[in-house]
């Protein structure tokens, strides 16, 4: 097979990251990009991407595209993914797969019906530090993991935009629970739940405590306690309330404990890494996941995390929203 021809739908924050990574992928070429904003499409123009659209439906009609990367706000996932499947384009879909279980099932059904490969973007599954942890668990060198702590605390949608040279408002859809499906639990919690399910298997039961520091109608922090079918107990903390960035897991096994974390490099290292490799270490997981998707298309293998994986994460999150505990 020749190079996979990719179309990128959405050039917002995460879309731009995928855009840069597409330039460095082996066996793939970005041939089209779409975004509602002509200004956003300028980076595609500057990089010599020939097909540029302000409507993704036009992109999906192009016969020169094998697969699409969907980097749209969550409420647009279902319609776009279903149309992409109908147009016989393989799909890399940003997490969370959708706002609800119903929507996620619609997406999976459309991809099955059209025999389309679907991968959900969970970069932690490709992050070298967290991959090493998986190896250690599988080797058994930690023994049986009795307790796990996972924490992902960051600014979430409230990131650095005011300090940017051209300040950008937080996109309005982030403030609308109907469009996001929830707050930090679905946004950051989906990352950790997916990672821990990869490590320990399925979750038998989960309860949550949600925080509302920002006085909005969606949670800006959540603490979950999850019991895995094989016995591990995990505490999962997520939050959008901090200016800092903290992503860490601690595992405590019957033989030994192990921790892994992911943190931004300093700006100088970021510049050097971006100039030399095309991406910074911080986004290495994002790059590898995209390369994995392309490799799966070339070798005709099912990519992972799959749509079903994304659906399972949503089921757990919905269970966590239902099983809330109150401590006040």
């Amino acid at each position: 097979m020749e190079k996979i021809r990719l179309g990128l739908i959405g050039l917002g924050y995460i879309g731009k990251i995928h855009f840069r990574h597409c330039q460095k992928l082996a066996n793939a070429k970005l041939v089209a990009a779409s975004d509602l904003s002509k200004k956003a499409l300028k980076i595609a123009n500057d990089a010599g991407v020939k097909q540029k659209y302000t409507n993704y439906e036009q992109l999906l009609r192009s016969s020169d595209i094998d697969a699409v990367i969907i980097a749209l706000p969550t409420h647009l996932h279902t319609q776009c993914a279903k149309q992409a499947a109908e147009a016989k384009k393989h799909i890399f879909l940003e997490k969370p797969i959708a706002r609800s279980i119903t929507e996620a099932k619609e997406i999976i059904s459309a991809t099955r019906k059209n025999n389309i490969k679907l991968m959900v973007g969970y970069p932690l599954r490709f992050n070298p530090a967290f991959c090493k942890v998986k190896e250690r668990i599988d080797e058994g060198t930690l023994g049986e993991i009795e307790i796990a702590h996972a924490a992902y605390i960051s600014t979430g949608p409230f990131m650095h935009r005011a300090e940017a040279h051209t300040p950008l408002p937080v996109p309005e859809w982030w403030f609308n629970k109907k469009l996001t499906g929830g707050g930090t639990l679905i946004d950051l919690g989906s990352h950790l739940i997916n990672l821990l399910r990869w490590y320990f298997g399925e979750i038998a039961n989960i309860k949550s405590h949600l925080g509302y520091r920002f006085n909005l109608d969606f949670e800006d922090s959540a603490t979950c306690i999850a019991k895995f079918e094989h016995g591990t107990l995990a505490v999962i903390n997520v939050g959008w309330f901090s200016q800092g960035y903290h992503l860490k897991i601690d595992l405590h096994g019957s033989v030994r404990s192990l921790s892994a974390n992911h943190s931004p490099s300093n700006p100088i290292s970021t510049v050097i890494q971006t100039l030399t490799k095309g991406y910074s270490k911080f986004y290495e997981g994002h790059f590898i996941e995209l390369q994995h998707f392309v490799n799966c298309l070339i070798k005709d293998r099912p990519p992972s995390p799959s749509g079903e994986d994304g659906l399972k994460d949503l089921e757990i999150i919905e269970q966590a929203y239902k099983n809330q505990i109150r401590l006040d």
Partner: protein
Amino acid sequence: MRNLQTIGRIILSLVSFVQIKNSNMTKATEDSLYLINYEFPKNIQNVVIKPNLCYYWDFTTGQTTDPKFVAAIIDLARARISPNIHISIVESDASAMKCKYAFKILNYEKLANDCNVKLVNLSEDKNNIVEATAGGQSFRLKVPQTIQNADLKINVPKIKYTMEPIRLTCALKNIFGCNPYSQKFKYHSKLGETIVAINKVMKFDLNIIEGNIVSGIQPRKLGLVMASTDPVAIDTASSEMVGLNPKTIKYLQLAKKEGLGNTTFIPKGEPLEYFKFQYPKKNLQAKLMSKAYTIAVQTGLSKKLGLE
């Protein structure tokens, strides 16, 4: 009413420095006003308070005004003027911030309910166009009616480092936030002149700095309240405290030239040096990083590398 002293021919404004003790913000504010001989005017109806709500970071970051501090000022104003005065807390939408969310996220909606004051988004207020000049530049500025109709205007800024060439955000810069035009970054090429012009058309009567938590290079509990009726003097004092030479802050010099106040001041209360020592000042690494970022932005490298 400007509280001034003269030494020979030099006019000096009073700037007070008070340490908040036992978390008593009201007492510290009272003391800060006493030290500058400030007395609230009598027989007035409408009071405007302008905190700094630049973004959605709450007061614990040192970047926005603590609503508890604003509540202390409200209590004081009602006690000294009349319990029946109408108080409006004002802010306007900015390039990256919307008041409807900031008021909620930063606990100002709760403050408004608890203290029975009005929250006004100046971007949605009626306004009049006023012409002004500063530094040879001409401006047509929108002056919101809430500001225009106020009998007493109280500025409650934060002290922060900001981008070159402005360098310091404090009393004068906080009034930039009274400009109802939301795309404020469009003024950035002539920001200094704009700040001065806006202060000329919207003169605030009193400046009380909430320095309980300051941002600096990192947040620190400083427990400071500063007050002055002169925005130029209080900004000059603030710049000295944070380790910036006020002479290198061009808009401060322009503000003085345009008659907004004095760059000389008499400190009252606790020594400025005490707070200067405590303030989390920029170190060499931070200065170099700031310079490097400015260069990266100017050359377009930051966009290319996805740093913006």
